[in-house]
């Protein structure tokens, strides 16, 4: 009999975390975990504990790394972003994509979003935006824009006219440094007054629309972008 209630599934979490459930039960728990942060946290805790049991203070066989390193000589397919939007880009957007070394090369994006905390006004109250240098981000057709204010190691997205997204989408902020695009975090569905940590210097910034939860690498055309 498949477990159905929350309590039934909770009872399975220890066995689930140790891969000790049947396939059908695993599917049920997998489904449940997508909507239950408490159970996700419990599974994570069990896995941390299991990791302690598994720990062995020894080295892996030397030859294994050699085999892995040899495999790396064939690099995985790069995570790429399209180089040109469908509509003729404005100079500003073109500059975003063609700047630096990325003119004809794939742009590799890496994720920092999960390690960077964001504070946003969300649907709640506002907080005061400090004064500081501004960077203007605009869309290819000039219809959309947003300003970013930098102050005290933090950045703020302000004065945007970006449309509010549906709940299954999210705005994601990216910073460009050299040839790398780095995720600076998620801006929610309505970015006005969102705060992010601006500890690093970037050449340019862009905002994309992604599925809820954000992405590690984006293939989306930036909604707005601008150079520092």
């Amino acid at each position, binding site marked *: 009999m498949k477990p159905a209630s929350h309590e039934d599934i909770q009872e399975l979490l220890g*066995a689930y975390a*140790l891969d*000790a459930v049947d396939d059908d039960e695993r599917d049920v728990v997998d489904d449940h975990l997508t909507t239950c942060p408490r159970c996700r946290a419990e599974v994570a805790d069990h896995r941390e*504990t299991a990791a302690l049991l598994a720990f062995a203070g*020894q080295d*892996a066989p030397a030859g294994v790394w050699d085999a892995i390193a040899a495999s790396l000589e064939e690099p995985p397919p790069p995570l790429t972003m399209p180089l040109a939007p469908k509509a003729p880009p404005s100079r500003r957007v073109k500059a975003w994509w063609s700047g630096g070394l990325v003119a004809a090369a794939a742009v590799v994006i890496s994720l920092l979003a999960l390690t960077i905390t964001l504070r946003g006004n969300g649907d709640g109250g506002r907080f005061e935006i400090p004064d500081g240098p501004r960077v203007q981000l605009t869309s290819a057709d000039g219809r959309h824009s947003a300003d970013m204010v930098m102050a005290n190691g933090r950045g703020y997205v302000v004065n945007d006219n970006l449309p509010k997204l549906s709940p299954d989408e999210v705005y994601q902020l990216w910073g460009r440094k050299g040839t790398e695009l780095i995720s600076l975090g998620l801006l929610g569905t309505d970015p006005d007054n969102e705060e992010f940590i601006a500890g690093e210097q970037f050449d340019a910034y862009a905002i994309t629309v992604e599925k809820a939860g954000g992405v590690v690498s984006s293939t989306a055309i930036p909604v707005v972008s601008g150079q520092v």
Partner: protein
Amino acid sequence: MMSGSPLKDMSDAALVVAIGRYRDDALAEVYRRHAGAVFALARRVMNDRELAEEVVQEVFLRLWNAPDKFDPARGSLRSYLLAHTHGRAVDFLRSESSRKRREESDARRAAEGGYDLEHEVWDLAVADHVKAAIDLLPEGERQAIELAYFRGHTYREVAVMLEQPEGTVKSRIRSGMRRLANELAAVGIDGGYRS
């Protein structure tokens, strides 16, 4: 392409970000930190050195090819790698080709004198605490966890082996894991997740 802080000083999460930028030296550092545990667990569960080495390769190549699968908000890199390791090892054990050999092996182990989870645990710094926590577990919980985790059995199989109701075994695995976590947390060991 080297840049930024020395790899040895970087957090696991930062190393994974660097792997996302195709820095194989970052992967090498993650390997240096965690491959010993990955290999030991795979070998322990599969009882086969060559197969364990294959799992080690697979686990680290997967991290290289899909670093985004690791979510630092959900736990430590070590537990992530070990969870994948365990899953792959168990997949192998449950494959038809290995089932018969394993049943024979388990029968032989049982004949040789039962289960000895505490003898399977090593650690440079926390071994004593982990062993003490295991020693505090009720026998039923200890056996159930051992058979599930290190032998790769489902809780239903464990129930048959221990001649206990399935529900009892299921509960014992969970309560045992929580008991272990609490005992270890009491002495400041939490696997690095909450720290």
